């Protein structure tokens, strides 16, 4: 699993951090998404898919 985030699209809702805090964080000065783990391990796959699904700005893309 490979994760790609689009900082331009991100609206700092924080949904991805709530869904998968080991994979996503937010920048301190504007809340924009920070990708901690570009290739998350399989045990986090469901959380990451959930994070992508609840991102209101559709800023998270997953490729296998």
């Amino acid at each position: 699993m490979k994760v790609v985030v689009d900082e331009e699209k991100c609206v700092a809702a924080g949904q991805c951090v709530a869904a998968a805090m080991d994979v996503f964080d937010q920048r301190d000065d504007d809340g924009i998404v920070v990708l901690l783990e570009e290739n998350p391990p399989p045990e986090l796959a469901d959380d990451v898919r959930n994070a992508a699904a609840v991102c209101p700005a559709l800023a998270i893309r997953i490729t296998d």
Partner: protein
Amino acid sequence: MAETDTRTEPVVAAPDLEYPGERSGKCPFAPPAELLALHEDGKPVARARIWDGSTPWLVTGHAAQRAVLSDPRVSSDEKQPGFPHPTRAQAENAPHHPLTIFNADGAEHTRIRRTMTSPFTRNRMERLRPEIQRFTDELIDQMLDGPKPVDLVTALSLPLPSLMICALLGVPYEDHEFFQEHAAVANKRFKTADDDRRAMEALGGYLTKLLQQRMEEPAEDVLSDFAGRVTAGELTLPDATLLCMVLLIAGHETSANMITLGTALLLERPDQLERLRTADDPGFLANAVEELLRYLTIPHLGQRRVAREDIEIEGETIRAGEGIIVPLPAGNWDPQAFPEPEKLDLGRPARHHHTFGWGVHQCVGQQLARIELQVVFGTLFRRVPTLRLAVDREALEFKGDSLAYGVHQLTVTW
């Protein structure tokens, strides 16, 4: 005269229903029945007649709501012709409204939004959890020490989010009567344009003064952050005032209604209340809050938009310049997304609800609201296990006339 005689009337589409309807006395927690009927008729996109006689589109399906609210061809600019204003007061005042996160699109919206998001990151909100817990416990202590019955709105629902947003922004809580009163006017559906302007001016003057104080003497709070940006020339003082006003108003009315209405609902569903009281898994509690948010959907008047281009959606063509209303309660009760939506089930997966909106305008303060609700609902029923209504259920007055749905008073005892 000849010109007048040959002029054609604007074409008004036949409406499927009048909007907004009322939540019914039969179940005031549920969305209006005529909205739910659209799901049964398989009409995720319909036409509604609103207060000014116009017939904007009404998007009620969960998937259709996501499509519309994340489509860049759909605008939030309330100054565009065809924009379906929720009230006469807002229609009259719209030309004078400054640019905010609510009415800006695209790059402008992103620019404004990014000045507001840093205080509300998930991790910062998590760090506030102990303080939210402390305020909650203190308010419940005071309630238990005081006379009963008591109105939960004044004892807990309104003070808790007010204390939190005050602490975060650096607004003195002693002024809460002043700003709660003006915020309540701003949230009224049937306000006059003059009342609305007066409330905004009063709050604006108050916050400008606080910002000026922080420019002189900065502290550790959000007002000081904004004051610092004014001093640095990154923001004007009126812009900073407006951002703080949005945060102050949105920061307490919404959570307050959710706490009161959620408590009223749970007191009627003892089986679900028991699951909540006895749950020792924070994951269950977090999801239970999502289900309460879904079920009650307190932002009940519908997000307003206007199409900038022709858009195909669910077999309908929304033409450029046509208004669009997205009633969030309807999406949250779409059986395609939430099977048996009328069933309150605190264990169902509910995180994909639309209570905080969807798309780039999704609520800035949602992570604060979530943690407040997790703490309150996780604490209140454990500490006051015998909590119950002290009046007849029929005596509850539901708030249909406010931008956030709720109950005016919740008299409880234990």
